[in-house]
């Protein structure tokens, strides 16, 4: 059984490799990419069912027993994120077919697309801190290429900033790993957790934990989001959508994993800091989203708000609030991809991302308008759409546990988020139609399919919350009870 987990990483790796050799066969590249992702999606569903029935699955790479070797761990949290990653990747790929342009396709767009997926899913699945760094770098290197691919002036300028911020934060990541290895003498998450539980989490370990938190916060755009709006606005929207849906989530996942599994002894210190970081991020992100009048900027700031909300929900640190955060992270991946793709179509049609220069698009593009409306409501957390469950659980726990600031800020920022996306909706779709079908810069033919898939999923995840929640609860169960994870990895049987 266990080798099936590694298929999730091998399939995109081999696909990316094979596509290097067929750079000029565009049709072949597209179909291979799509088919490989669909196969990978099926594998992910199989593994999820397996994990759901039998609990966390592990694979010791090269047959080395933990804690000596590298372990790949498929627990429910990781697998849910992997499945969401694959769904988002399929839709972004479908959108990229129509919009990315042959020039980029010829210069290894699909190869790096798949390599980035290897990095993202590897980060979710690994059970080893250094291996997490390696997969982070796989993901980041591919994202460097994607963000600067086919660069115009603006794209090059923004990618320099993106690359610089990420290189420096990766170096700090290395430093944190060095300290942690020096203190605990191990890199395996489960083993590290056991050692810290035995020896107690003293001030030194807490300091390193906070240092590690800052590294991940920089990658997840938690508080330190200053680098995010520029680079996310520069590349083509298919790539921006992929980044917005996936990259920050990897940082959030790392925070979830480290602070639920390893550094959970000093809640009053670390989780308090996380809560305040989340609250400040929500406020600043919401102000940014409400203030800007450029479509790309508004969407980018919405990414920031969601990061703040998920971390704040996690920081409450009860099983239910973590379930809410997990629900919200899956929802956010889907809805951010949807919003970015829809925004990409709007920018493609009008040729501008300034809200004041568009209007009346609903006359020619009713489907586009209504899907945007649904996405906007889902983002704000209106029932029965997918954003509702996550927000409900987190806010309920926040009030129950006495985190009133989180509850208040969560609600107010939801309103501001709703205002920012409805602003796009009103300016883009209401009013006089200034744009005849002939004037449009691109056709929507084929691009509405990925939006429709995502819209159906967003509605389905909200209406079918009853069906989804057992999986989410299982993920939160493992997060709030580290011994489940440790037993599975260290193969401790009762």
């Amino acid at each position, binding site marked *: 059984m266990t080798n099936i987990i590694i298929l999730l990483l*091998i399939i995109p*790796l*081999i696909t990316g*490799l*094979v596509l*290097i*050799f067929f750079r000029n066969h565009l049709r072949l590249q597209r179909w291979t990419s799509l088919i490989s992702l669909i196969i990978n999606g099926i594998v992910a569903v199989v593994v999820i069912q397996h994990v759901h029935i039998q609990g966390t699955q592990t*694979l010791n790479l*090269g*047959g080395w027993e933990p804690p000596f070797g590298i372990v790949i761990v498929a627990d429910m949290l990781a697998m849910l994120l992997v499945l969401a990653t694959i769904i988002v990747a399929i839709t972004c790929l479908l959108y990229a077919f129509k919009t990315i342009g042959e020039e980029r396709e010829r210069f290894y767009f699909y190869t790096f697309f798949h390599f980035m997926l290897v990095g993202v899913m590897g980060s979710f699945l690994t059970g080893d801190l250094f291996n997490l760094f390696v997969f982070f770098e796989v993901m980041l290197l591919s994202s460097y290429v994607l963000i600067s691919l086919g660069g115009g002036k603006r794209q090059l300028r923004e990618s320099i900033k993106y690359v610089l911020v990420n290189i420096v934060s990766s170096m700090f990541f290395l430093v944190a790993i060095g300290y942690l290895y020096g203190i605990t003498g191990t890199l395996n998450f489960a083993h590290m957790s056991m050692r810290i539980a035995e020896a107690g989490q003293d001030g030194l370990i807490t300091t390193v934990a906070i240092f590690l938190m800052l590294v991940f916060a920089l990658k997840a755009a938690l508080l330190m989001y200053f680098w995010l709006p520029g680079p996310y606005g520069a590349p083509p929207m298919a790539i921006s959508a992929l980044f917005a849906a996936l990259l920050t989530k990897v940082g959030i996942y790392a925070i979830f994993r480290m602070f639920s599994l390893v550094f959970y002894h000093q809640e009053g210190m670390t989780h308090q800091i996380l809560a305040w970081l989340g609250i400040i991020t929500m406020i600043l992100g919401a102000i940014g989203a409400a203030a800007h009048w450029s479509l790309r900027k508004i969407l980018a700031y919405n990414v920031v708000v969601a990061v703040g909300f998920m971390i704040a929900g996690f920081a409450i640190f009860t099983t239910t609030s973590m379930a809410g955060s997990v629900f919200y992270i899956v929802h956010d991946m889907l809805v951010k991809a949807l919003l970015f793709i829809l925004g990409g179509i709007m920018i493609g049609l009008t040729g501008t991302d300034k809200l004041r220069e568009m209007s009346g698009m609903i006359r020619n593009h009713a489907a586009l308008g209504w899907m945007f409306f649904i996405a906007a409501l889902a983002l704000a957390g209106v029932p029965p759409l997918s954003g509702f469950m996550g927000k409900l659980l987190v806010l309920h726990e926040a009030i129950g546990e006495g985190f009133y600031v989180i509850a208040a800020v969560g609600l107010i920022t939801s309103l501001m988020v709703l205002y920012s996306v409805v602003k796009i909706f009103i300016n883009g779709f209401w009013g006089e139609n200034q744009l005849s079908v002939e004037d449009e810069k691109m056709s929507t033919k084929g691009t509405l399919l990925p939006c429709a898939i995502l819209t159906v999923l967003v509605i389905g995840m909200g209406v079918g919350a009853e069906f989804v929640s057992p999986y989410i609860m299982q993920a939160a169960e493992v997060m709030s009870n580290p011994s489940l994870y440790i037993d599975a990895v260290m193969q401790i049987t009762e």
Partner: protein
Amino acid sequence: MKANDVILQTVTKVVSFIILSFAAYLFFAGHHDPGGGFIGGLVTASALVLLFLAFDIRTISNGIPINYRLLVGIGLAVSTVTAVGSIVLGFPFLSHTFEYVDFPLFGEIELATSVLFELGVVLTVVGGTLTIILSISEDV
């Protein structure tokens, strides 16, 4: 501008082979001693870069017609195939094995599958390094 670099060219003709054989030594030594695929690849790449420096890019490209970007792909493919091979044979991913084989003339030699993996690393490193260097130097 054409500099007169007879000395560099003459020395390069000899030295590049010494560097290449040192690279091969490092590559094979890497199993038990300091060395390995990455460092072997870098030394190989340095020999090739020396050739590119001493002669010009066009001459060497005609003499050694390798597409270095494809070389990266081939190297990655070799490494991946050796890693995946262990799955096909029913072992955990990335498992490796070794065998002592008696060769005439050389005596007993250890043959390990991890050498194949390292071979892929060598090809990738050579391809990657030269792609970087050539893409900067080509349009000066």
